[in-house]
């Protein structure tokens, strides 16, 4: 218990520092930043989905910068090949040996810009590395660095020449968040000449990949009481039983929900999860994994509606003595 409390206390401070650092470049989006940082410490990947110009790439780069580890960026295009992502074996003329040259995925933070522009086989190459954190080339398995965070962006509006991400790959993203436009005050601040907004270079390095990896491991010990697990399960079941969904939340989704909840709790300085932690991340974790029926789509229902209905419908566990 004491270890957990200490860990949580340390993490709370670190979390605050990381979020503050990212906010040097991304103004007025603290909740989103917190979510993305939470995903980072859950060991999950983040999908940023929004229209162009809202700061997706800036956010991703700022997170990578604050983390302090290696970060690479891939601009996905239709002609991008899997080997361009994962790496390829080349003949070293000096030694005459075939040598594996690691691709961009061999970094701590991978920025996958416009991920939906890549062809299906390139996206599937991402599948392995996102789930297994390994790359297999010529029969040899290469492990990517730890921690490994994919921050992908995609544009939901301009869909010409894009390849829709398969459900399997969407399920591998811990969170999907939208940034949205900043409010008046923050947008004015961004517009003001001399603003540091978008200046990733101003983001200080506040942690190290090793520290992140340690917290990813240790935050798994944050206590989740049995009723909360049942609550999470009930949320998942509610999305599955919802008539508007063709595919509800998977077990992996619910695991992700628990993990994100743990990091949320730790970010609040608690070594135990409470229902509001789960509720706070439920939308980000669940929405992109649901597949709606055609009828529901035609009616204008969104995955957010389904998740909101589930959250409203399921009884929250509350403390009770008798």
């Amino acid at each position: 218990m004491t270890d957990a409390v200490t860990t949580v206390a340390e993490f709370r401070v670190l979390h605050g520092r990381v979020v503050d650092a990212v906010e040097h470049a991304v103004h007025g989006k603290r909740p989103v930043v917190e979510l993305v940082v939470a995903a980072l410490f859950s060991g999950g990947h983040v999908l940023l989905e929004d229209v162009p110009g809202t700061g997706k790439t800036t956010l991703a780069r700022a997170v990578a910068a604050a983390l302090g580890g290696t970060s690479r960026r891939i601009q996905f295009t239709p002609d991008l090949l899997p080997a361009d992502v994962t790496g390829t074996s080349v003949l070293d003329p000096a030694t005459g040996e075939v040598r594996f040259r690691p691709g961009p995925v061999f970094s701590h933070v991978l920025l996958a810009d416009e991920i939906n522009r890549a062809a299906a086989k390139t996206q599937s190459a991402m599948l392995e590395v996102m789930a297994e954190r390994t790359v297999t080339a010529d029969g040899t398995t290469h492990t990517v660095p730890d921690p490994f965070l994919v921050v992908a962006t995609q544009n939901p509006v301009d869909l010409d020449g894009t390849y829709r991400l398969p459900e399997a790959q969407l399920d591998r993203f811990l969170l999907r968040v939208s940034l949205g436009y900043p409010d008046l005050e923050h947008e004015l601040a961004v517009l003001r000449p001399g603003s540091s907004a978008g200046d990733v270079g101003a983001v200080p390095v506040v942690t190290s990949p090793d520290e992140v990896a340690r917290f990813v491991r240790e935050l798994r010990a944050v206590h989740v009481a049995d009723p909360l697990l049942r609550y999470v399960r009930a949320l998942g079941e509610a999305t599955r039983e919802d008539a508007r969904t063709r595919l509800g939340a998977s077990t992996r989704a619910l695991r992700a929900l628990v993990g994100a909840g743990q990091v949320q709790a730790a970010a609040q300085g608690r070594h135990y999860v409470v229902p509001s932690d789960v509720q706070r991340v439920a939308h980000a974790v669940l929405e992109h994994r649901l597949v709606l029926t055609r009828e529901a789509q035609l009616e204008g229902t969104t995955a957010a509606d389904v998740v909101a209905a589930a959250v409203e419908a399921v009884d929250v566990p509350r403390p009770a003595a008798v």
Partner: protein
Amino acid sequence: MTRGLRPTVRGTTLTVLGVATLALGLLARYPGLVALGVAALGLVVAALVGLVLPAPLDVTQRLEPARTPRLGPAAARVALRNASPWLPLVVAGTESVAGRELPLAPMHLAPRATGEVEVPVPTDRRGLVAVGPFVLERRGLADLVRSRERRGGSSTLQVVPRLLAAAAPPAGRRRGHVGAQERVEHGGTDLVGLREYVPGDDLRRLHWASTARVGTPMVREDADPAQPHLTVLLDDRADAYGEVGDGFEEAVDAAASLVQACAADGVPARCVTLTGRLDVEVPAGVPGTDEPLRAAAHAVDRLTFVAPAATTGLDAAVGVPPGGGAVVDVLVVVTGARAPLPALLLAGRGAATLVLLVVDPAPARVPAAPGVAVTAWACALLLLACVPAASAFTSPVVLAPLAGAVLVPVALVALARRLRVPAWATGTAVVALVLVVAASVARVGAVGPGPDAADGADGSAWRSTGAAAALGPVADAVARLLTAPRPAAPVLALPVVVLTALVALGVALALGRRAPARTAPLVGASVLYGAALLLTAGAADRGVVAVALVAVAAAGWVLLGGDAVGREREAPRLGHAARGPRTRWRAGGVAGLVVVGLVAVAGVASAGAVAGRPFEPREHVTPPRVPAAAVHPLAELSRWQTDAGATVLRVAGTHPGHLTWVTLPDFDGTGWSADLDLREVGTVVEPSLAPGRGRAPVDVEVELVALAGPSGSPGTWLPSVGDVVATTAPRALVDVDTGVLAVPPTPDGRLPAGLTYRVRGEADAPDAAHAAAAGVPGGAEVDRYLRLDRVPADLRAYAQDVVAGAHSRLDQATVLADTVRADRELAVDAVSGSSYARLREFLFADRADGGQVGTSEQFAGAFAVLARAVGLPSRVVLGFTVPGGAAQDDPAPRDVRGADVRAWAEVYLAGPGWVRFDPSPDAATASGVVQDARPQDAGTPVEDDVPVDEPQDAPPPDVDGDGADRDEATTGVAAGVVALALAAALVGAALLAVAVLAVLGALRRRRLRAAGVVGAWQHATEALARRDGPPRAAATALDLAERITELTGVETSAVARDAEAVAFGAAEVGDDGAAWRCAREADRRLRRGAGPGRRLAWWFAPTPRGRRPVPPGTDRRAVSSGTGRPAR
């Protein structure tokens, strides 16, 4: 799904008991019995009502595994789902397993919750065991009514013989069967035959010589001379095994185990049953290979369905088992303990080695005794039922022997059960003990008046011999008790004690049986209760004890569980109760408490509606009469009047101003006399004429002065007033018709000198309004007071002339008294006598001829005769007027002198009762009617009065002259009383319910207070729910805290956070007291802000349920017990 609603034995018994006691109570007009009946029937009705709605339950079941060895684990998993979205469900039922109904422990299911019960399937018998369907058994209140519904499907379990750890016969012990007799210790190969090669045969086993000879590949068939050949002979005759235990099952296990062990070792084996119905072989094979094991499995399968046969005799058994030519090397005979062993030993004569296995199972277990709690409950019921009996006796000390009579038989039965004495022997012994003790006590302690000698002479032939003679005193004790004064002396309680002991014995014996209904205690208690009511004519209890009996019985059934006291003994309960006993009690107990409370109120209210004269068994038993010397007392009148200054007696206390010495109701034309029926004071005998409606209490202390002693008056009459209820005069006797009090005659025929005694009772106190309107009764009862044999015509004519103008009976009597009094002279020295002649002389003769002058005897006698002549029931009373008149609690004794001894008359009027008339000229008061209440129009005719000369047509004695009006009024009053009682019952029930809810609420708050910060938080949220209604599902603790803060200004988010920390994080938090104070403050402010209705009901409103904070599929326990914290 089939449904069946049926009353349990308990319910049936309670219904019968209820109907019987209700009918008897109404018949005998015993409020207590009516209350008992109504309460019993009310419980049954409440139980029925609870079972009307169908249960929303889905049942699925699966069996694991489908095949198991005997005594191996097998279980059916019954999944129960509460389909109701809002109704919690208590599920109990039975799972049908092998034709037996196995009860499941009650399971509490939250709305939409699912529970699973693992039903172990008994595998003590081989064969196919049918499992299912699940029978949902719902029980009404106190298990009085049950309904059964079949739910779910059924499946079948195959139970095969149990395979014990056995070893095959050791190799190398067998004599080689080919030639030599030497022992083959290390195995070997004997060529026993040749056969054609089949693909797969080992080529090394080709017998080349034969192959060359035959031209076809031939393979050797070898036998291992060291390999044993086992034959298992299973005795399958039913009579070889006892009826108890699993002897045959174990025999089959042994047989199967041997066969299996042989197969595992590759040793050939054969299994034969003695009746020849089974004969399977397991061939030799390579150890560990499939073939012999498959054959063994086949044999085991066959053994699964072997049943003991009814064949008797040993024909099939003797000799080598059938099977023709097979090698019999080792023969194992498996048989039961009852098989004739010598004959079986012969069965092994063809075998080299014979093993005889005799299976002797353990004896059956002795049934367990009922628990202490059940026995205590039964004793409590019986003791409670004994309480009303105490009021039939003068001292409550009688409760001690009654308690002993309850406890001793119960203890003896418990002791006997521990010593394993059969129940019939215990019963007989205890009955004998009770009778012997009772006979001894009756013989030693027979006191008080016994039955009449004459009755005994007629009816005592049966007791002349044997045990009847010994039990005679016990039988007499019953008569003695029923004819004794009430309340009786405790020494007369013997019959009640004997009855109690016998009932307690019966109850104790019934408890030892496996009857699940457990109705014996209530039935026994009802018997005792009824006996107590009979003893007291229903006065012992107005229904309170009756409903208490029903309540205690129901409480026992509920708390000790229809199961704890009953079925637990039959079969183990399956599964686990989903909640602890305390919560079960809370859920079921509150409803039960309310129902029992309502039933109790209904019972008491119905008892209040019982009106009328209750049945009195003593009226059907003639009490003993005590002979008393009848000395004519009228002669003493003139003696005392001449000795006018002597103090006759002294009187103090409450009295109407006169004392009765003796009442003379009988007139034969020559004089007045008293034919009295003297009995002990307190003996229950009703007077022949109903007492008056208005009664005044009498409590007078009399000191006899000149009246008693050697110089006193002869005779043993004691001055008294009215109807005597109790007196301190020793061994006093009373005549209930006249109220005359007497003591048994002394040797000198006079009262003991200086006797001082106290008399309590009641006297008729007629008021003028009723008396003026009253008629006179008719019927045989008044004939005695109207009797005028051969009355002279002039007397009758005179009387009729006198009353000619009178309008009412009272007026007639008053006019007669006035006429007798008018112009006549009272003289102490006048000629005595009351014959017709003396009265005619007194009334009609001239003063010179001795007429117109008389003592008070003539005045009273003439008035009484004239009154009888006009149909007024009358009698003459000799008594004393007390100087100073009526007195109320007068402590100063007043001297009654000789001049105060006088005679007067009394007239009986229907309603007012006996009205005193003193027709003497010097009378202080002319009549006993209270004059100031007399209405102004008393002279108006009475409509329903009877003609003066037709008294026999008058209304019966117990009906008023104005009966119709009175009846109507009485009916109206009764209806009003009933309505009032019902209203009071309803109000009482409502108050009871409120009180119960308030108490439960207080208890709940106390538990919450004890539960620390989580309890405090729950208290606050419940208050919020009372104010706002149930919160929305998604509202977290912090949301609720914000709402509370918004409504009250009390900052409760810290409490919410702490509660969450405890509930979800197993954390230790700081100050529970501060949290509780915060929650209380929030509760107070929320209440203040609520509407008037909610504020009123705040303290006793039920806990707001609504949407409980539980996700679907969650076990409700998790939340109610603190949301499943991890272990610290």
